[in-house]
């Protein structure tokens, strides 16, 4: 629920309002064309969002009667240490995983962008994990990471790297980095495709001209490639950050929030409050807080990556 509303909040900047000034036939036809979209957004975003706001003002148990309590849920959130810890962890994860994804995806994009033999094969291979759902990917890695019957631990032992089987999921750092590796494996292909389209939109004449002027590869990358990819980077960055802040599946399936509750993300906490503690109203209030945080972050990113000349 929260992930849908929050994501939709990022990608639907309201556009049609500007046309109001001239009321002519074109106006109505235009309205007709966007009507299906408006209906979809209303039914699947605006109404659920309104309901979430409404619920967040109630003590709304999963079972039984709900009652209006005003802003009590929001006041409780300010004192909810575990939510803020979860949020802190989520931000830490977002920073690390975003850097990791870009560190892998950018070189991959540079690699597959140029025409070379078997480009199609490479592109497909790198993109393949993206089409696997997060839940199924997590299950696959749950097996790979299993200490007794998986791949990594027994393999490391048999190769003589570790003396006995090492439980990767038992302590924070190995568990956290296992997740990072898995997410990068799963997501980097998607970021790669976005970055690749950005790279391909840069006119080759510019690169050639710079080459003739004697710019080396690094200079060309800094002065031409990066500035011209500003919008693409912004898109990839916002998608990556939004996706990471809403992370849930992998931590739920692979780690169950462990070891020792150290990997509980914000959405995980919302899920727990709503469906383990049965406090739907409080979960709704938490979702609203997360939505506000996410929208703010996205606006900041858009502003930072805006073209200097304006939009």
């Amino acid at each position, binding site marked *: 629920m929260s992930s849908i509303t929050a994501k939709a909040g990022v990608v639907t900047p309201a556009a049609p309002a500007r046309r109001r000034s001239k009321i002519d036939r074109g106006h109505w036809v235009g309205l007709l064309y966007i009507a299906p979209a408006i209906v979809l957004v209303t039914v699947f975003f605006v109404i659920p969002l309104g309901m979430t706001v409404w619920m967040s003002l109630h*003590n709304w*148990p*999963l*079972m*039984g*009667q709900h009652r209006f309590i005003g802003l009590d849920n929001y006041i409780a959130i300010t004192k909810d240490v575990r939510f803020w810890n979860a949020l802190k962890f989520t931000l830490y994860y977002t920073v690390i995983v975003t850097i990791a994804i870009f560190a892998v995806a950018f070189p991959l994009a540079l690699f597959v962008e140029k025409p070379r033999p078997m480009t199609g094969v490479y592109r497909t291979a790198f993109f393949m994990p993206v089409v696997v759902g997060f839940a199924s990917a997590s299950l696959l890695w749950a097996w790979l990471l*299993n*200490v*007794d*019957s998986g791949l990594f*631990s027994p393999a490391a032992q048999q190769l003589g790297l570790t003396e*006995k*089987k*090492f*439980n990767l*999921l*038992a302590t924070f750092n190995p568990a956290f980095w296992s997740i990072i590796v898995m997410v990068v494996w799963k997501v980097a292909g998607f970021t790669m495709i976005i970055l690749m389209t950005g790279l391909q939109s840069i006119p080759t004449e510019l690169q050639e001209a710079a080459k003739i002027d004697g710019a080396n590869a690094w200079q060309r990358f800094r002065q031409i490639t990066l500035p011209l990819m500003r919008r693409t980077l912004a898109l990839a960055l916002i998608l990556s950050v939004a996706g990471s802040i809403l992370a849930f599946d992998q931590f739920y399936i692979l780690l*169950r*929030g*462990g*070891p*020792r*509750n150290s990997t*509980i993300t914000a959405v*995980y906490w919302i899920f*727990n409050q709503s*469906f*383990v*503690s*049965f406090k739907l109203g409080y979960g709704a209030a938490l979702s609203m807080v997360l939505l506000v945080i996410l929208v703010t972050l996205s606006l900041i990113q858009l502003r930072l990556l805006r073209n200097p000349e304006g939009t």
Partner: protein
Amino acid sequence: MKKLTSLLAATAALVSMTTLASAAETANIWVRADGSNFMPQIVEAFNKSHENQIKLDIIPNAELVQKYATSAAGGSAPDGLSLDLIYTPAFAAAGQLEDITDWAKSLPYFKDLSPAHVTTGTYKDRIYGLPFSADSSVLIWNKKLFKEAGLDPEKGPTNWAEIEAAAEKVNALGGDIRGFYFSGACPGCNIFTFTPLVWASGGNVLSEDGTKATLNDPKLREAIDFYRDMVAKGLVPEGAQTDSGANFFAAFAGGKIGIAPSGAFAIGALNTQYKDIDYGVTFLPGKDGGWSSFAGGDNFVVTKGTPKLAVLKEFLDFAYSLEGQTLLASRGSLPVRGDIAKEALKDLDPRYQIAAEAMAKGRTPYSVVFNDIINSANGPWAQLVSEAFYGDDVDGAIANAQETMQSIIDAGTGQ
């Protein structure tokens, strides 16, 4: 005249028959997937022999509560529900269940019904749930490994020192074979199999009425040290630390574990799916002997305001009959009627007797926030289990869990 009366009688009979036929009703009940081994069978037997019918839906374990809550809100809740007994107080507190006190007390064998079920089925002195299926925790050991390790395969451990000594001997067989197993990241498994060790030693984790967390009980600390000791000695496989329950049964069934705390359900599962494993069943002992058990299973509860109460009563009467109890027992659910338990079990695997005895004296923690404090993978009990068995700061973990648990209880009962 005679003709007329006979005609009248015939008509009356016909009328009564048709009303009876049209009066045949179908009640809808739900059960969690854990019950799929016995529930379809007893429903089928009931439907064959009764006019009124039961329609059964099997719901995945983890989805039952949410699904029930949403259908109750939408007015499509089932008429009755076989509900994990620990949830009964929470459901009753939420006002979802029909008060069945009068019906329950009218049953001639009411006092012989599983006390753990009746206790959790009672909320504010009214009864909302009656025992349906039962599972108790016991200790199981691998007789083949015991023999190979030079231990008496027919005698199970009777206190902690004996468990540890036997586990060490089995462990010494080497290879993949390990002495002991528990699911280190599974709060549900450990409330089921670890707390009985504490109870049998005279300690507790929660006050009887569920209002006070007692995780600072010194007996709990001793039990933790017992497990830590076995972990430190390498008697437990590495995977146990992160096992969230997937291997709870499978580890022992693999035949490479000497001793494992488990449940009565394991008897049915081992007998049907792992016929080559030779195992013994005994009680979960206290530190210096004695024993205890967690009485688990399902309570049968009735959705508030259902028009099909009579059908549900009929069904429960059938389940409580000797025929019903025997059928349930043969499918792996222990009898819930103490007065006919022996008779229902007499033709079954004798190891069930131990489990049934454990059930009769079993205990169940009582709390309206059980899911929050115990079963949640991120709750205080889960935190305690993983930190205390494997962490470096046991006292800190206990203090922390005690505080968290108490604050959840206070918040939950204050509503």
